[in-house]
């Protein structure tokens, strides 16, 4: 018994080792360790440090007591001696930060939902209904992606004013889809193209309407694409700044990025703790979301570029 289990264990271990080295390693066995150290690990380490340092600094500052922030000689600035939650609690209980977070969330969810619905319908029409001029419409939508907000915010401000939506988060929910629809439509077009026609033909023969085909066949098969579009759109909404800065005037209506820039900057030398806490708390929801959906996020980003 022991013999056979030992042998099977050996086989399993061998298979595992093979699985780990197989295919991914490629030709890297040709390199010596010192060479890899210099050409791979060292540069990668330096780049990673530079990329991550601002976040470390942000997190460290937000838990550092004020006297350590401005006294860089007694205390080593790269570390914190008596961490405090003072800045974060000040942020959450003495400012309107929770309100701003809620606004940002509300706008992001609203705009993303509207965009996904519009994009699903548009992408399905372009890819599968093949109406007259479908290709031209596809190209037009791609060009819409290239129109940047910074040449539109002035005329949009007067459009929003004319519709009576100025200083209302609703204005952002209506405007953000122009950033999200072109991108999501292209992404979903890519996904819909991979779903075989035969499925639709079967459903048509069985008497399904186009709407039933979309809801019961296409959408369930395109769930990964929908998640990708949703995550990416949500991140874009959270990140958007210029429209929010232009359209929102009163303090309680602001989104997190706008509020951080305008409401905390008061010339106080002790502002840094709560400022960094605000930046950290504002980033965390996205980082957590990203941590759960890395694959979808990356496929959204690269998918849109590859198309």
């Amino acid at each position, binding site marked *: 018994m022991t013999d056979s289990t030992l042998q099977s264990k050996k086989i399993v271990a061998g298979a595992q080792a093979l699985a780990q080295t197989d295919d991914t390693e490629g030709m890297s066995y040709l390199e010596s360790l010192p060479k890899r150290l210099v050409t791979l*690990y060292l540069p990668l380490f330096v780049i990673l440090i530079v990329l991550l340092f601002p976040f470390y*600094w942000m997190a460290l500052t937000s838990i550092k007591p004020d006297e350590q*922030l401005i006294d860089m000689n007694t205390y080593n600035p790269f570390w914190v001696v008596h961490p405090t939650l003072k800045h974060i609690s000040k942020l959450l209980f003495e400012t309107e930060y929770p309100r701003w977070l809620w606004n940002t969330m509300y706008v992001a969810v609203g705009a993303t939902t509207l965009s996904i619905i519009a994009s699903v319908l548009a992408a399905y029409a372009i890819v599968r209904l093949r109406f007259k001029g*479908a290709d031209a419409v596809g190209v037009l939508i791609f060009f819409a992606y290239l129109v940047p907000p*910074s*040449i539109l915010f002035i005329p949009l401000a007067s459009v929003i004013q004319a519709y009576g939506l100025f200083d209302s988060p609703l204005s952002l929910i209506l405007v953000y889809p122009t950033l999200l629809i072109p991108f999501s439509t292209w992404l979903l077009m890519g996904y819909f193209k991979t779903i075989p026609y035969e499925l639709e033909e079967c459903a048509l023969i069985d008497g399904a309407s186009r709407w039933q085909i979309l809801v019961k066949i296409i959408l369930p098969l395109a769930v990964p694409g929908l998640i990708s579009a949703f995550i990416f759109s949500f991140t874009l909404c959270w990140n958007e700044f*210029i429209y929010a800065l*232009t359209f929102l005037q009163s303090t309680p209506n602001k989104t997190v990025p706008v509020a951080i820039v305008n409401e905390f900057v008061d010339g106080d030398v002790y502002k840094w703790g709560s400022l960094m806490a605000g930046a950290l708390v504002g980033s965390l929801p996205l*980082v957590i979301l990203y941590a759960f959906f890395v694959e979808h996020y990356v496929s959204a980003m690269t998918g849109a570029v590859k198309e």
Partner: protein
Amino acid sequence: MTTVQTSMPPQAAATVEAQPLWERLRTSRNVLALWFMLPAAAFLILFLAYPLGLGIWMSFTDERIGRAGIFVGLENYEWLWDDAIFWLSVFNTLLYTLVASAIKFAIGLYLALLLNRHMPFKAMIRAVVLIPFIVPTVLSAIAFWWIYDAQFSIISWSLIKLGLIHQNIDFLGSENWARGSVIFANIWRGVPFVAITLLAGLQTVSPSLYEAATLDGATDWQRFRYITYPLLTPIIAVVMTFSVLFTFTDFQLVWALTRGGPVNATHLMATLSYQRGIISGRLGEGAAIATAMIPFLLAAIAISWFGMQRRKWQQGSDND
């Protein structure tokens, strides 16, 4: 019986030829597609195409906040033509775009090549690399603002401790330092995007090509130059077009870090447009600055478009 039989075919023929209008509308693919396109089209026409046209129109008026404008022809543009600050912002925008895009491309490609190699914790490292791109630009700009602080900058502190400098660097207070600092922050945020998208392109290159080249005695550089680079060109063109466009029209990073200062040294066309259009209330002039960005954007798109076409022509047109 016979009458029924003879009368049926003409009726059937009639229904095929002249169906009721609503019946044709219900089954026509074109009409159905119209309904499906309606929500997306409504958003894009109301809040994208119309404002685009309106912006160009506004640039020919003297509209201010709270007052409708009247048509003034090219007056706004003539005014800008003689405005040194406007030309400074054009120079800054071009400098910002060219330097930041070039460095983003170089470091991004290098990082992509590094990440494409075999190493432990590969998936995790790739995920971590993208974090600067996930975090909202303004929030990371705020962190950079603190890092660049005139009094408490950690960079100045470290350099002084290392004995390389003797007094704090005023990163955002002096003109060239401010330009460099803003460009660095932009590169920091843009590199992950370039790296991860190029990495996706690299992964489609078959490893057997490299193995064959290695057997033929190709060096690292030759493998990159004659295998990686040609196969990666289409995706490089797309990624860099996006990168250039987004850098050229950048607003939030500069606004959060310097608001165009010191002495307009970091004003981009977008920030100047906001300054003049919204803060000073001269909507017409702001719209003229924004409209002046359009030719540059069209040029960038055209260059990458023709680059792609040439590439396609070289590789055969079926290949896309």
